[in-house]
């Protein structure tokens, strides 16, 4: 039978429908489609896909099980390398990782590895009865700071080796960016909760409402008997553009906008936490977070949503599928544009006018791409005199974050780089003995899977160091 040149399509909610609800966009393969897609794998000799995976999942092996309809077996292979299979199958940028290495992809579309991973994980979650069993304890304690992708991965890997792991989370719910950042329609919260529950079954203790650097310091964790500490505290303070008007009401950081909607559930009909709904919204930025914010605004009832990005479609850093979904849903991409000022309502006649201080528009300037900059991407340059105004009621700044200073400020001897990221070696070890770090706290804003990879590396290093 000849190989199908295209990936089996992922069934999705129709764009017109999903633009108005928070249910998951991608619906997942059926068993038949999953088996058919698995059959596209050539099972080639050198498995380049595995090297493209930051946690080195044995991809051809799990796909081989799927061909035989052994979905639980496939899941077990994935679970050996990944603590969060159902999450990664949904949010990994496969097109720049495993799938871009796929041999089949040289001629045709690559195998839909991410979609297969998701299927295996969902199948397991729907069918597996037995709980995860904690291994025999080895009597050693490790503290993990932050319950996002890096922290959960590090905790999971150590727990599987018998360590008593306590995860400290600053917010009231475990999951980090998976809970406060990535919206329900892309990653249902029940899936995150399920993954967290699996860790609890493995014996991981998760303490919410503890802010390391405030409630407890890293040094106190050692005093309490922890022998190693992993810092996976995440990205931190949102960046703004430092243009006039950013203090007007209706200007949000993406972190705030998404946290209100996701963590605080402002998207529900009768929310306790308010958010601006409806109107016209501009989201500034081109990453996954920008796509999430734009599509959230749309689902909250916005009449029109712009993505304003200073480079072109080619440089857009978001995951390809998210960009396509956003376009299908009617998000208006204004590329090669950059905001220069946010405009607000001021009534000089009446200082008590309730409309005073609310956003009315955003002045932008058109850009063109010049010579490549340090990052290798062509640098956007302003086109003089090309200013124009978008009429909007809200602006969401999704232009990255700077590391949170709380831990650095309270941990003597913890070195950070110029941008505030914690400095680590190839094992994730920081300048402090026994203190490891990974994820956005080290790299600045990056992906879920790279954070998981860092959590994994650190878990291995911690185990080696403590086993000596």
């Amino acid at each position, binding site marked *: 039978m000849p190989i199908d040149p295209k990936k089996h399509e992922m069934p999705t909610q129709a764009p017109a429908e999903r633009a108005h609800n928070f249910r998951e966009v991608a619906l997942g393969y059926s068993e038949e489609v999953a088996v058919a897609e698995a059959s596209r794998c050539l099972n080639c000799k050198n498995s380049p896909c595995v090297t493209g995976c930051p946690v080195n999942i044995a991809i051809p092996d799990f796909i081989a099980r799927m061909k035989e309809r052994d979905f639980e077996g496939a899941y077990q292979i994935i679970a050996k390398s990944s603590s969060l299979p159902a999450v990664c199958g949904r949010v990994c940028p496969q097109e720049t990782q495993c799938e871009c290495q796929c041999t089949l992809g040289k001629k045709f579309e690559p195998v839909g590895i991410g979609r297969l991973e998701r299927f295996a994980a969902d199948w397991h979650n729907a069918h597996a009865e037995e709980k995860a069993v904690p291994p025999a304890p080895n009597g050693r304690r490790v503290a993990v700071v932050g319950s996002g992708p890096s922290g959960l991965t590090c905790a999971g890997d150590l727990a599987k080796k018998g360590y008593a792991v306590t995860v400290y989370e600053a917010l*009231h719910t475990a999951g980090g960016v998976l809970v406060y950042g990535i919206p329900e329609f892309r990653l249902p919260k029940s899936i995150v909760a399920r993954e967290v529950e699996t860790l609890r079954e493995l014996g991981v203790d998760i303490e919410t409402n503890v802010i390391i650097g405030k*409630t407890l310091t890293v040094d106190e964790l050692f005093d309490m008997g922890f022998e190693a500490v992993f810092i996976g505290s995440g990205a931190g303070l949102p960046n703004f553009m430092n243009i006039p008007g950013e203090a007007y009401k209706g200007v949000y950081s993406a972190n705030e906008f998404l946290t209100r909607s996701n963590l605080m559930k402002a998207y529900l009909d009768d929310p306790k936490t308010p958010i601006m709904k409806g109107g016209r919204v501009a989201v500034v930025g081109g990453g996954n977070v920008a796509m999430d914010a734009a599509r959230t605004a749309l689902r909250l009832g916005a009449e029109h949503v712009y993505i304003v990005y200073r480079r072109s479609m080619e440089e857009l850093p978001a995951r390809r599928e998210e960009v396509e979904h956003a376009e299908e849903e009617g998000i208006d991409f204004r590329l090669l544009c950059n905001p220069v000022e946010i405009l607000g309502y001021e009534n000089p006649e009446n200082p008590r006018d*309730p409309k005073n201080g609310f956003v009315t528009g955003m002045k932008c300037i058109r850009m063109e791409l010049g010579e490549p900059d340090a990052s290798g991407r062509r640098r956007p340059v302003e086109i003089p005199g090309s200013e124009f105004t978008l009429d909007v009621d809200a602006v969401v700044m999704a232009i990255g974050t700077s590391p*949170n200073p709380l831990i650095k400020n309270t941990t003597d001897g913890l070195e950070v780089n110029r941008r505030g990221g914690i400095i680590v070696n190839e094992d994730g070890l920081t300048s402090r003995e026994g203190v490891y770090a990974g994820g956005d706290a080290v790299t600045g804003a990056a992906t879920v899977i790279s954070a998981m990879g860092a959590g994994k590396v650190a878990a291995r290093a911690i185990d080696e160091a403590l086993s000596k």
Partner: protein
Amino acid sequence: MYRIVRKKPLNPTVTQMEIEAPLIARKAKPGQFIILRVDADGERIPLTVAGTNPEEGTVKIIFQIVGATTECLNHKEEGGFLEDFAGPLGTPTKSDGIRKVCIVGGGVGCAIAMPVAEEFHRLGAEVTSIIGFRSKDLLILEDEFRACSDRLIVMTDDGSYARAGNVTVPLKEMLEAGKRFDEIVTIGPLVMMKFVTAAAKPFGVPVTVSMNPIMIDGTGMCGGCRITLVDEEGKRTTKFACVDGPDFNGYEIDFDEAMSRGRMYAEFERHAYEEACSLFRKA
């Protein structure tokens, strides 16, 4: 879950609670705050720590019923539980090298000013306290202030108790009469802190203000609590009240902007409050 060990009304709209939170009780210093959620689906609200008892492991909060969440909070009873209680957040009020301090508190802001006054008193500074309220029935913590102040002046806007007028009146009088302070620390409504700062300016006394903007996480993640500081050359800098504050140099704060931002959800909050009130009336 965090147990409410004691609850006491201070006036018809202001309540004091002591919450069991041993880790925070050990760490919190005057000027810092906590974030709480009353119930599992509630919003996160910041409240400044009004005192701690490290031996007992309790943290004191004092809140005014101003909206839906504080209304719900006030319906919790002694022995009951709060869903979440996290902190201590923000930086403590600085007290180094301050020998003569004037504490200016307004309304429920006095609940935050009181532990600051106590701390200065404990450190041996000379403490002058000016506390102001709209009227006599809203007066709180007079005895507590008296105990830690070398001089206490109580003001009511309507003259129903003590001296009539707002807090800037006695402050100006003292400064004009040649009284000198190393620092004025003011905590209360934004408009009051703005005028206290303006009153102190001609005398060059440093003013610390405690900002209380809208917040969500309180840990430096959402940026909702941003405040604009304006230096002498007019250069504007964005700061986050949760990690950089909540205390700031009063002379640098853009108060008008902060007041405007504080009203962002005024309409939503009014509706939510009305709904919460009618819900409790039915119950």
